[in-house]
């Protein structure tokens, strides 16, 4: 992108401004009080990875229980709590903050050529709010648990035992962390782009994060008030959602999905944003259809606010409303397809390198294809009536949430790992892990499409004996998936024990974050970068910044 900057500093003299961010300040306190977006990103990264591990353990327990039609390892009550905790942890504590708060926090200012995010103290504050939310969630788990499912539907959630109010409060608190991150990123993108960098000179990752941040800012407050009303409903019985007192439980569903459907795009847009970086880098080719991809992110964000009713086709909402929601839902496929086709065309006649991040990006294209298209099935009212609340829905959203978002997150993690920690991981091991994750994921969730279409309802503890083979296939798939993650944890941790060996730009990328050292210095760049070209100008020679 730009012709800049870093003369590599291998200096022994410790000028504050030349020290890489990992070594600028030692000890726990220097991390807990940092306002450096890179360190905050890393703190988020370890926090969400821990939560991913926790949610993953619950997922493995669910699959293990479903190995046999009757009780395998836990009681039905425990099972209800386990799948609720799996969902709540994965959604609120892992996926939503995963790409924005962890990866984007680290790379967004670097990509823009900025020294930091707009509000560094607010950034640190939002991490503390996240941690507070996480602690409250853990407190809810150990003081009775929650068995409502992550959607907290009334009236069940207002009448069941357990720590529903506490868990809801945790989600409420986590929402503020998400809002503050969103506010920070919108302001950063508006005001902190490097001199000369116009809106269409930004890497597409920034467009994706911008669209995400807008949704975080506009949708999350509605969830906040919904959860607050739910807490009041439980503690005071105010009756808004309780039919016994004249309230309307469907109102809760409207409120909940008004946030939670846009939240689905809080989860997928950052994934798409990562793919828009990985594919041009590993094709060494200018991205095809830059503006189309940029605008499709914003289009998805806007449309996301008017499709929530497709979660409620069987709730008794009016048939006219269902028909309209169904039609608008189909419309989401248009910008999604625009992106997908542009990514594919970008690879055409490129010099494609199959490094681990690219393997994840290619996996994403396949899995998002399946996840997206099955979403169209479910968006059709007549089909949805049949498939509603079956494993088909479970498989669909796992293809989008895990097959797409988590796969893209892993792609991004591998892509930026050398930048974040200054170390290369073992590439062969990464390829093996990626293959295992891909195979394991499909083995886990493809059978669930079949199960669902044959009538296996979601969230059931027992099932008919004829479903056992498919359930077992799914469980075995989860073990392959688990093995893939185990290997990944192994080589990633192993890389951290090595000496720093990553070049500034191992992938020969043109975006700004690669034009500074790996790991970057505390102030990101020695001089403010001035930008005189597009982020994907692969037809131009690389600037001096690359020393790979």
């Amino acid at each position: 992108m730009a012709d800049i900057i870093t003369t590599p500093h291998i200096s022994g003299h410790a000028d504050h401004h030349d020290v890489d961010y990992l070594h600028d300040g030692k000890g726990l306190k220097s991390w807990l009080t940092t306002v450096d977006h890179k360190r905050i990103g890393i703190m988020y990264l370890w926090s969400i990875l821990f939560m991913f591990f926790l949610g993953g353990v619950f997922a493995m327990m669910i699959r293990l229980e479903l190995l046999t039609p009757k009780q395998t390892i836990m009681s039905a009550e425990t099972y209800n709590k386990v799948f609720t905790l799996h969902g709540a942890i994965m959604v609120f504590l892992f996926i939503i903050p995963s790409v924005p708060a962890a990866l984007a926090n680290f790379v967004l200012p670097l990509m823009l050529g900025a020294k930091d995010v707009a509000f560094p103290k607010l950034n640190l504050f939002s991490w503390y709010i996240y941690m507070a939310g996480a602690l409250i969630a853990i407190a809810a788990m150990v003081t009775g648990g929650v068995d409502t499912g992550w959607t907290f539907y009334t009236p069940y959630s207002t009448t069941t035992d357990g720590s529903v109010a506490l868990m809801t409060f945790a989600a409420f608190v986590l929402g503020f962390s998400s809002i503050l991150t969103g506010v920070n990123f919108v302001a950063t993108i508006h005001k902190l782009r490097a001199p000369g960098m116009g809106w269409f000179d930004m890497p597409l990752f920034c467009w994706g994060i911008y669209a995400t941040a807008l949704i975080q800012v506009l949708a999350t407050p509605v969830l906040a008030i919904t959860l607050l009303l739910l807490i009041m409903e439980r503690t005071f019985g105010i009756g808004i959602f309780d039919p016994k007192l004249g309230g309307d439980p469907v109102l809760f569903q409207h409120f909940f999905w008004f946030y939670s459907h846009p939240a689905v795009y809080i989860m997928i847009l950052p994934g798409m944003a990562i793919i828009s970086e990985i594919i041009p880098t590993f094709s060494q080719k200018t991205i095809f259809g830059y503006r189309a991809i940029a605008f499709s992110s914003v289009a998805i964000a806007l449309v996301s606010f008017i499709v929530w009713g497709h979660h409620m086709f069987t709730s008794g909402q009016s048939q006219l409303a269902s028909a309209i929601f169904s039609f608008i839902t189909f419309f989401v496929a248009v910008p999604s397809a625009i992106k997908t086709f542009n990514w594919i065309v970008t690879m055409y006649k490129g010099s494609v390198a199959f490094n681990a991040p690219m393997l994840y990006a290619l996996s994403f294209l396949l899995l998002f294809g399946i996840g997206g298209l099955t979403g169209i099935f479910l968006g059709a009212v007549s089909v949805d009536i049949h498939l509603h609340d079956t494993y088909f829905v479970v498989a669909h959203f796992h293809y989008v949430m895990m097959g797409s978002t988590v796969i893209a997150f892993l792609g991004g993690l591998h892509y930026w790992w050398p930048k974040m920690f200054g170390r290369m991981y073992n590439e062969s091991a990464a390829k093996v892990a990626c293959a295992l994750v891909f195979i394991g994921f499909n083995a886990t969730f493809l059978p669930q499409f079949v199960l669902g279409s044959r009538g296996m309802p979601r969230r059931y503890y027992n099932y008919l004996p004829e479903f056992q083979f498919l359930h077992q296939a799914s469980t075995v798939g989860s073990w392959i998936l688990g093995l893939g993650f185990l290997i990944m944890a192994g080589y990633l941790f192993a890389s951290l024990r090595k000496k720093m060996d990553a070049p500034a730009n191992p992938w020969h990328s043109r975006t700004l974050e690669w034009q500074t050292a790996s790991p970057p210095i505390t102030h990101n760049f020695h001089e403010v970068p001035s930008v005189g070209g597009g982020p994907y100008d692969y037809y131009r020679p690389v600037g001096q910044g690359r020393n790979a």
Partner: protein
Amino acid sequence: MSHSTHDVAEHRFRQHHFATAEQQLDTSKIGMWLFLATEILMFGGLFVGFGLMQGVYPEAWVAGHHHLDRVLGAVNTVFLLCSSFTMVMAVHYASTDEKSKTVLNLGLTLGFAFAFLVVKYFEYSHKFHDGLLPGRFFNLAGIGGPPQQAMFFGFYFAMTGIHGFHVLIGIILITWIMIRANRGDFSSAYYTPVDLIGLYWHLVDLIWIYLFPLLYLVS
């Protein structure tokens, strides 16, 4: 990038990651407006719920609002309107380097805010005394009328409670900028915190201006 440039708009509170004081000011304003948007959406959810339920149970809403004290509500509206005015004056005097007038107006704003909370305290304790409590604690036997008044008071306490919480936060913030103003932190070159907390305070006022007719003047 150095701190030594003597631009008119430069000041000692510029943070290192901003190139100019103007960039910092613009960024802060974007941040505050976005935050205010989230506030509007949060209260928006409450307003939608309130309006929907009013449509279903209009008699309960009318019956419920008769138990609210219009006069006290109106007095509080006046308090908040005055506080918005003094806030505007505080921002104005901050921008014209008139320190003592800034502090005085911030003090007056604080006074109105406290007066609002005192009135609210008397209103709440009166409601508690009469058993006009939200949801299952509502004492219908002592009042009579449609049972959904319990829901009306659920909304009443949710809306005024969350609003009152915002007033409390406002008091803390205004106290903070009053201390800073008194210390001489602000000048015509830099009074962003006064400006932004002013914006926040106007929103708190504005929300009350919607809450007052919605709750107290149902017909």
